[in-house]
């Protein structure tokens, strides 16, 4: 009961030195359906499980393209994600407009982090309730970043966020060392298997999965339904055999 008093605003520290609003925002990320990303030396793949609020409703988009060299997968409040997505797109366009080149990845993540931090520092604001996985290629190679509501960001070889992401994480942790030289097709397979681990009761299909790929010499794009169906079929076959 007492903690309620510390938890209402992000300008209040609790006695342990935590900002509860930020902790709660992290919970919002964990509520969202799973998103994961993985990268090799030449490619980054983002995989998301899409949810539909209702049988008659469409599935909520989870993977967005930002620029030719960059895309994001999200977990948490989609509305917040769309706001950040719009921000990132416009930053990329602005950078392109002034420099004629792609926005360096980490600097864009830094800008998001700065925005996120401001949201944890003002009494009339709330932290973003969304975690982003940003997959991108620039001249320093391929990158997979995770950006948190707290304003922290980390770079990974492979990572999963969202509800029940632990199983996906476990799968990725087991396999990430062999990712370095893989083609994007292989990465997609690993991504789908990891997603499968997290979404056990859900049947994966081209309707509830989205996959984004980007690589050196390969602009960011979402896989189309045919490609998705084929990849999903492939991994289900493989799994049947192994079982």
């Amino acid at each position, binding site marked *: 009961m007492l903690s309620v008093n510390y938890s209402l605003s992000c300008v209040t520290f609790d006695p342990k030195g935590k900002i509860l609003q930020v902790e709660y925002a992290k919970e919002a990320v964990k509520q969202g359906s799973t998103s994961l990303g993985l990268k090799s030396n030449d490619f980054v793949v983002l995989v998301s499980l899409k949810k539909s609020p209702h049988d008659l409703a469409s599935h909520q988009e989870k993977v*967005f*393209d930002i620029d030719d060299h960059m895309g994001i997968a999200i977990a948490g409040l989609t509305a917040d994600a769309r706001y950040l997505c719009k921000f990132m*797109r416009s930053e990329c*366009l602005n950078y*392109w*407009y002034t420099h004629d080149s792609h926005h360096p990845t980490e600097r864009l993540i830094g800008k998001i982090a700065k925005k996120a931090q401001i949201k944890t520092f003002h009494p009339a604001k709330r932290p973003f309730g969304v975690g982003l996985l940003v997959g991108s290629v620039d001249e320093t190679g391929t990158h997979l970043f995770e950006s948190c509501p707290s304003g922290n960001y980390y770079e990974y070889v492979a990572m999963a966020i969202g509800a029940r992401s632990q199983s996906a994480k476990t799968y990725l942790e087991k396999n990430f060392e062999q990712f370095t030289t893989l083609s994007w097709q292989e990465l997609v397979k690993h991504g789908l298997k990891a997603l499968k681990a997290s979404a056990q009761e859900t049947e994966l299909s081209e309707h509830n999965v989205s996959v984004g790929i980007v690589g050196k010499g390969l602009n960011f794009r979402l896989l189309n339904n045919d490609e998705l169906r084929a990849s999903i079929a492939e991994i289900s076959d493989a799994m049947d055999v192994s079982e």
Partner: protein
Amino acid sequence: METHMQNENYTNVNIFKNAFEHPTPKALDGGKSDKTYYGPVMEHASGFNPYVNNQGTTLAIAGQDFVMVAADTRISSGFNILSREHSRTTKLTEKCVITSSGMVADIENLHKLLIAKVKTYERQFKKSPSTESLAQLLGNTLYSRRFMPFYAFNLLCGLDAKGQGCVYGYDAIGSYDKLTYGVQGSGSQLGAPILDNQFVGHNFLVKQLAQSLQETEDTAKDIINSIAERDIYTGDQVELVLVDQNGVHIKREPIRRD
């Protein structure tokens, strides 16, 4: 006054030329009377004129299922040639290009702005904007700078919804019309009559679009070549851009460099 009336056809949009290159000073009494000053403009050392004409010619001819754009690649500043390989034509979508002449700084800005808008559109709606939409967009973009216009004379060329070639011709502040062929820039006065002659009646009510690609390409090349014979600001290379079902194809050929 008369000079303003001479060119009614805005494929020869240089009716704005006077306005850009000799900005009318405030009325001589400090703007108190509403008389507009049409006399000779006194050149004065102070003051900055943000406009400069980099010249050059571009033309476009719509075909049955293609558009052919031909432009020279010379840009000048005064009597100086700044570059002999400047491209006037920018690809906007797989089915649409824009080609402009005028002030290259403004043109580059305008083209970049349009590309950014196209990208935003594509991300938002998950499809490319149609040529018709882009025509309207370009008109609005130009008009949004009504009071410091882009010094750019544009032709927006692409395939329409039916797959037919179309050319949209603009003036600097966004007034536009759908044409079957158009020419802009320093050689437009020289080019327009040849186009009129070769593609007779194409701007009349009953329109017959050019059929043969090869013929159109040769004619377009010839026209730029002819203009280069008489217009000192046109020359060096002709850049041919073909837009058809398979996308945008670009090639260049040398022409006279003097």
